[in-house]
Every structure is written in structure tokens, then in C-alpha cells.
């Protein structure tokens, strides 16, 4: 049985950063991912990474923008840490080889981003996430003492008799072999849950596995109702058009040709924070001022052509390949679309969850630095800062504990469970059908605008689908790359995620950040300036709790852009 001081689950930015930090601290490290690390969804972060590196800028300004962006739900101690450590993290990446954009003097150059009071977004064309992910993977190849398990899947996390984390039951996707990994500490870095929605900008792999796995062994989730809709996604397939487009100066128009952001955010216009812009667009669309395909227009033609090719190259490709539009010549139709979950496994500023030895970092986690709404270019930062802090802390913790011996019986149980799925008589619907219904339900009832009755309908639907998922039909009876069986496991995780999202959205009877309740349209700091937590009760159903918002130096104000 492989045994590690630190077992990292997920190999996107947070996971790789955690593994490298733990390795540097001298721990034995294993990193496991259900896809090859460079396929991770961190790739999709186009626009950049925020850091107050410029001497004219300050981490306090970055932190305040983040606090305001979060609609005051973000924990200010965590935000302070993230913003203070951002410049050094950025420089470390630069030193490791990330090809960040330079200005004409050869120094690092920036671009503007939404909700920010200074241009502090550092970038590599519009492939920033990809560029960083691939450079971290270079470092992982260099540090080959870190054992990589690529295309392995965790089926469940294990706790020991003392309640602390003990390891995980894992399955090698390539041959179906199952094993137990013992670990003194486990860092979850398995990403978000965008696939719960359809359409979404998220990749097919973003099924919230880690969130559900932690929830199932008793770790509380937090801010689950806060689901970000990105203002510029393609109608139909939900593909992302980077906020960098607006950062470079692109405008939004309704069907009447009005630059409608004037009415919603007269100062920041298109660069207000994402929840504000998405709500503005959805209001235009709902009130009949959108295009017949339920969209508004993003006009990038106002940006200098050479600049488009240099800085928005990927968007040129996306427009051409996926919408048939040359964005340098004509506006492209866009709408708000599911993009990011601010919520996740509740952690402290060292990534510790409420289960001893279990850590979480990146989108799977909720520190909470994003609160009700994440600012663009803060997600890469979140993954790296809290990935590194988790890795370092986990390595230190591992020095003081014995290697746990996870119970062999859990492996047998999990194996029996998967064998049962694979061998099941075909009676129910396929994974794809249940998933499609879930995605449609969430996108229509738990999206930009929400209200009690439709949220309750969504909850009822999710519960029905959970029942149905128990009998989901499988075609693949094999062991090698049985993606069908994997999909059945992911489906169950997605349904757990959905149930927690809806339960928290029902609970929060106010409007804050990404949660806009048409039946409670005001922010209510009296009652709701607090985090909602969700834990699994004895029956595995969501149990609501609360957690204080940590305030350090910024009192809640009215939020205007």
C-alpha cells in the first residue's frame, strides 16, 4: 500500500502548487489526478492573475477591492493574506519560467480587470492559466521524487478511528485496479462543480468530486449558494470569452445598440464586478432588450487589432471556431453563464478543514476569499496561495504524526460498490440523461435570479434525481478506461453538490453577491452578514449551520461601481 506524508488529490494549479510546496518542505508526496495534470481546468483561466506588485499599488487596495467584490461576505483575514502574499507568488512563478507579458521596458506589464481599482492583472496573452499550469508541471517533472498518479480516481476518503484523515480508496482509470493509499495528510485540490449546471464554462471533469467526498466524511461546506455566472459566455455551448476582452476595452450593447452598463454601473461600466454585469445583462434580456437568441452583444472591434492578436488570440480562435464570428470585425453574442463556485469545503487560512489532517485548496475549498462574488483574476491567485500554504502546513503536520493504517475493509466495500455499478442490470436511464436534467434544472431555477418557489422545485427535482441515480444504467462492463462507470460515480457527487447549493440558496433570504433573490432583493447585513455552512446529517441530508464573517478593517458599505 503506497503511503505518503502528503497525498494531494487533483493536479491543477492548487494541487501542483501544494505538492511542490510539500516536497520542498521535505515531505513524501503523492499527487493523484483523474486526468493528466495538464488537462486540468486551471487551463481555462484566460485573463490573468492579480497582484499588487507595482509600488504605486498596494495590497490593501487589492484586498479592499476583493472585500467589496465579495459583497462583504469574504473573510478579511484570509483576503489580507492572499493579497499580501500575491506579489511574491507572482515573482516565484516568473522565476520558474512563466512567460508573463512584459512592457516596453522589459518589466512585467498589466491589464485592467473587473472590480479592480488599479490595473494589477498580470498575464500571458489570454492563456494565463495554461501557461502557469504547464510551468508548474515542468517543475513537477523536474521534482520527480513527487510520485504522480495520473488518470487515477479517488472513490472515497477515509478517516481513522481517531477521526483524523487516514487516506483514500483509489482506482486506476487505465486498468481499473483499486488500491488503498495511506496518508498522514490529504490535500483536496480537485476543483469546482460547474458541471452541475448546463450550460457551463467548466470542463466535463468539473464534477465537484472533492466537495462531495469531503462532505460525505463530515467536513462542512460553506458559501455553497454563491455560484458565479460569468458575464460573457457563448450562447448554446457556454464557452468563455475572457473578461480580459472588457479589460482591453470591449463594450457591451443591447439589441437597441445601447451601452446599457451606463444604467447599472456608471463609473466602472463593463468592468464592474461580475455579479453586477451578469445581472445587468440578464435584466436587459429578461426585459426584452436582448437579441432573439437570448443574448446581448460584446463588441471587441473597438480594441486595436494588433492588440487583439497579441493579447486576445485565444478569443479570436474561440469566436472563429465555436461561434463562426470574426471578433476583430463584428460583435459576438454573449450571455451570463455558469462559471465558478465561490463555495466549497470550509477551510482556515492554512487550508485546514474541520477534519484533522484533511486540507482543501483552490476551487474545491472555501477559505473564504471570494465571499459572494469572486473578482476576475483572483481565482488563479487563490489556487496558488492556498495551495502553497496547504502544502507547507500539511508537510509540517505530517512530521508529528504516525502513518495511519486505513482499514482494508473500506477497499473491499468500494470495490463491491463499483462492481455492482458495472454489473448492474440495465433498467434506469443513462448518466447523460440524468445529468442533462440536473443541468437544465439548476440553470433555470438556481441561476442569476432566484426565488423561493422555484428553488424548492429545484430541490425536489434534485432529490428525485438522486433516487434515480441509484439505478443509473451502464453499458461498459470492462475495467480499462471504464468512463461510463466513472461517470456514474461523478453523477452521484454532482447531485450532492447540487443539493447543497440549493439548500443554501433557500436558506439565504437576502440578495448578496451572486445570490439575488427576487423575493428578497435587498442585502440584509443585520441578519445575513454570515456564512451559511452545510454538513451531512446522519442520513446524509444537508444540515444548515452558520459561520461568522471575519472582519479586520473594512466595514460593510453600500456597493456601487
Amino acid at each position: 500500500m503506497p503511503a505518503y506524508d502528503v497525498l494531494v488529490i487533483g493536479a491543477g494549479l492548487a494541487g501542483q502548487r501544494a505538492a511542490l510546496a510539500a516536497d520542498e518542505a521535505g515531505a513524501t508526496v503523492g499527487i493523484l489526478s483523474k486526468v493528466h495534470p495538464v488537462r486540468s481546468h486551471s487551463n481555462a483561466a484566460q485573463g490573468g492573475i492579480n497582484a499588487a506588485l507595482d509600488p504605486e499599488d498596494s495590497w490593501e487596495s487589492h484586498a479592499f477591492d476583493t472585500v467589496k467584490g465579495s459583497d462583504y461576505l469574504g473573510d478579511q483575514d484570509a483576503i489580507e493574506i492572499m493579497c499580501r502574499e500575491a506579489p511574491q507568488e507572482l515573482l516565484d512563478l516568473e522565476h520558474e519560467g512563466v512567460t508573463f507579458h512584459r512592457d516596453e521596458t522589459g518589466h512585467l506589464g498589466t491589464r485592467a480587470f473587473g472590480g479592480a481599482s488599479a490595473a494589477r492583472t498580470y498575464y500571458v496573452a489570454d492563456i494565463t492559466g495554461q501557461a502557469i499550469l504547464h510551468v508548474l508541471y515542468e517543475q513537477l517533472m523536474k521534482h520527480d521524487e513527487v510520485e504522480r498518479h495520473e488518470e487515477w480516481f479517488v472513490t472515497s476518503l477515509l478517516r481513522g478511528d481517531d477521526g483524523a484523515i487516514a487516506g483514500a480508496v483509489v482506482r486506476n482509470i487505465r486498468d481499473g485496479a483499486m488500491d488503498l493509499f495511506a496518508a498522514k495528510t490529504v490535500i483536496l485540490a480537485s476543483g469546482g462543480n460547474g458541471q452541475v449546471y448546463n450550460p457551463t464554462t467548466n470542463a466535463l471533469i468539473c464534477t465537484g468530486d472533492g466537495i462531495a467526498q469531503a462532505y460525505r466524511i463530515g467536513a462542512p461546506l460553506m458559501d455553497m449558494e454563491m455560484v458565479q455566472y460569468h458575464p460573457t459566455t457563448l450562447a448554446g455551448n457556454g464557452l468563455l470569452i475572457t473578461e480580459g476582452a472588457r479589460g482591453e476595452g470591449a463594450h457591451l450593447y443591447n439589441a437597441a445598440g445601447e451601452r446599457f452598463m451606463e444604467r447599472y454601473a456608471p463609473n466602472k461600466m463593463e468592468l464592474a464586478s461580475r455579479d453586477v454585469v451578469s445581472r445587468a445583462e440578464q435584466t436587459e434580456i429578461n426585459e426584452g432588450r436582448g437579441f432573439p437568441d437570448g443574448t446581448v452583444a460584446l463588441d471587441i472591434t473597438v480594441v486595436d487589432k494588433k492588440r487583439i492578436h497579441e493579447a486576445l488570440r485565444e478569443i479570436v480562435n474561440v469566436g472563429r471556431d465555436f461561434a463562426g464570428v470574426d471578433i476583430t470585425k463584428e460583435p459576438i453574442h454573449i450571455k451570463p453563464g455558469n462559471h465558478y463556485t465561490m463555495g466549497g469545503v470550509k477551510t482556515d487560512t492554512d487550508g485546514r478543514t474541520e477534519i484533522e489532517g484533511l486540507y482543501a485548496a483552490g476551487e474545491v475549498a472555501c477559505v473564504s476569499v471570494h465571499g459572494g462574488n469572486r473578482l476576475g483574476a483572483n481565482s488563479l491567485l487563490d489556487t496558488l496561495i492556498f495551495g502553497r500554504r496547504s502544502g507547507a502546513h500539511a508537510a509540517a503536520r505530517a512530521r508529528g504524526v504516525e502513518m495511519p493504517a486505513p482499514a482494508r475493509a473500506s477497499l473491499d466495500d468500494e470495490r463491491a460498490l463499483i462492481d455492482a455499478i458495472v454489473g448492474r442490470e440495465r433498467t434506469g436511464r443513462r448518466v447523460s440523461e440524468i445529468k442533462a436534467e440536473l443541468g437544465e434544472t439548476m440553470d433555470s431555477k438556481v441561476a442569476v435570479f432566484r426565488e423561493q418557489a422555484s428553488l424548492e422545485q429545484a430541490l425536489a427535482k434534485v432529490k428525485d434525481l438522486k433516487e434515480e441515480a441509484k439505478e443509473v444504467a451502464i453499458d461498459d462492463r470492462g475495467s480499462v478506461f471504464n468512463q461510463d462507470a466513472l461517470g456514474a460515480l461523478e453523477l452521484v457527487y454532482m447531485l450532492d453538490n447540487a443539493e447543497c447549493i440549493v439548500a443554501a440558496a433557500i436558506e439565504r433570504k437576502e440578495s448578496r453577491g451572486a445570490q439575488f433573490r427576487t423575493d428578497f432583493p435587498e442585502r440584509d447585513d443585520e441578519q445575513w452578514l454570515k456564512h451559511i455552512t452545510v454538513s451531512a446529517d446522519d442520513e446524509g441530508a444537508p444540515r444548515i449551520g452558520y459561520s461568522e464573517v471575519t472582519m479586520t478593517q473594512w466595514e460593510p458599505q453600500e456597493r456601487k461601481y
Partner: protein
Amino acid sequence: MADYTLKLRRFDPESGQAAYWQSFDVDLGPERSVLDGILKARATEDGSIAIRCSCQAAICGSCAVRINGKSALACNTKLGEASANGVDEDGAIVVEPMGNMPVLKDLIVDMDAVHWKKIQRVTPWLLPEGDPPEREYIVPAEAMIDVTQAMACIQCGACVSACLSMEVDPEFIGPAALAKAYRFVADPRDGAAEERLRDLAEDPHGIYDCTHCFACIEACPKDVAPMDQIMRLRRRATSDYEIKDQNAGYGHEQAFVRIVEKWGTLHEGQMPVRSFGQGSMVRGQTDPSAVGKLLDSAETGVNTMRKVGPRRFFLHHKLPDQKQVKRIFKEIESKDERIELNMYIVGHAEEPGVAEEIEPRDVTLGAPAEGGTDS
């Protein structure tokens, strides 16, 4: 809505059976992708169809396959286009796993065994000289933009799949790994450019193993143009470091350039003598090692002579206006600086508005037109 037939190459390693073809009809519009088609077949007809896929937006690099024989990402190949560009006799879009790599199941290949092994071969991490500065490295903006073209690689393996040299020489380091190598060689922060170049030039399966066939450029979904990066490695190896490799790559290039300078077209008979003599005919005729290599390649020489005829093999005519060729050489060689243009600078070739903003300076002789590789 149009109906498309996808003919998938299926292989189940647990069945004990050979690979076979299976067709699926999918009812999707022409603007939808081949991957959409495959996922629809999987969702509605057979959940056991295996293909790696994730982002569906040509970013993650998971879903490279061969579509009607051409290596490409399934997610950014439209059904309509795939159907228009050469279906089989039954009118089906033929989808197979990538080439040059062992198949594991259906459309999934073993990338570790080939692609990632080759990436590992080029020491794929930055080797800076000394300690890093307190702040960032100060480097020219153009240098970062230049290497960003290679950084745009998503490691999908389509170029490896399409590489004809690798088909002949499986040991060839190949287009993806060499493009990755360029990313370090051209990065001003890397302190090992010369060592890297020497290593890649001396390796018989290195930069001189590329036959200039353009297949990788055509296959690359991200305009990385791996072959261009290989040519850039060669230019740096020869022009910047004058690395005279044992594969006669340096000599071959020098011979080619000097022959064209002298005659205007290729003098086949002079090529081997000058190539093995590191670009010099005198050295080629006097250096014992060059003579040995010449003897080794005597068969090629005889075949070439048969092909072009003894007259052209020995006596090569000059172009009528050879002076003009000489003038071009003079003009280019008088430039102090070699200008490397890439897609992030020039945009698309079919975009006159963009290209016009660039001064019409060309790259070093022998370089293919860059920025026009958008396929």
C-alpha cells in the same frame, strides 16, 4: 439539422478481439463538433465508447484523434467540415485514434509511452543561471511573445500523431518536444541554451531528423507551428553557436545556402561533399571523417545521379539572373539582427490590415513564411 455518420475505430483490450469499425448516426448541425457527435453517440447509443475529453474548447488537449486520416482535436473539428473534407466510400466521417502511439482502448492512446517520454527528453524546465533576481527578470517584451507561441502548446499530441519522420524513426524527439525545447532555448532567462542546442543537434534523432514536411504545422490546433520552432532551433544552433554536429546538419544547411548563393538552384552533386565537409567542399574532400561519411552515403549519391542525370549531377548551370540571388543574399546578410516573427506578432496571413503594420523584413533564408499557418 443534418445527419452525420461517424465511423469509429473501436478496440477493447479486454475482449481478446482485434480492432473493428462501428458506425453511429448522429443528428446534429454542421457547426457542432466531431466530439459533440461522439459524445452524443456515447450518451444515446453506447456508453462504452472511450475518448479522453474535458474542456470541449480546444484548451485542455485531451481529444486529439485522426479524423478522415488527419490528426486534429475532435472538439474543434466541425461535423460539416469533416464531412466536406473527405469522408469514406460510405459517406461516413472516419475517426481513429492518433498515430505513432499505442492504442489503449477505442480512441485513447498511450501518450506516456511516446509523447511524454519525448517531452522528458528535452529537460523540460527552466535552467536559470545563478540565483533569481529580487524582482522579475528584465527581458525584452518580444522574447516573451516569441516563446509564448511555443507555450501555446496544449500537449495534445496531434503533431506527434501526424509526424512522418517519427513514423520512419520512432526515436525522433519529434515536433512537440522540440517546440517545447525552443521555449527554453529562446527564453532569455534560461542559462543553458548552448548546451540544450548542442544536445539536440548531436542527437541523431534530434533537430536534424525533421524532414520539413509541414505535417505538424497542419495538425497543430493552436498554431504552435512546431516545425517552425525546429527551424528556429537549427538557426540558433548554426548561426548563434556554430554547432558543427556529427549528423552533418550544420554542414548540410551551410552547403544548401552556399550552393544556392552560387548557382541559384540546388546543385545535387555538390551537396554531399559540402554537407559532410561542414559546408566546405575542400574540407569535404580532404577531411578523413567526411570522406568516410561520403562513402557511407555513396548509394544515395548514385541514386541522386540516376535521378538528375550525370550532367546535372556534375555540371550545374547557374540561374540566368544569378546576380539577383546574390543581391538578396547580400541584403539579408547585412542585417545585424535576425528577426523572428510569430503568430502573436503578425496575426493571420489573410489579415492584410494586421500584416501591413509589420515592416516587410523577412526572416533568415530558409525560413518558411510564418504567421500563415492557420489551418
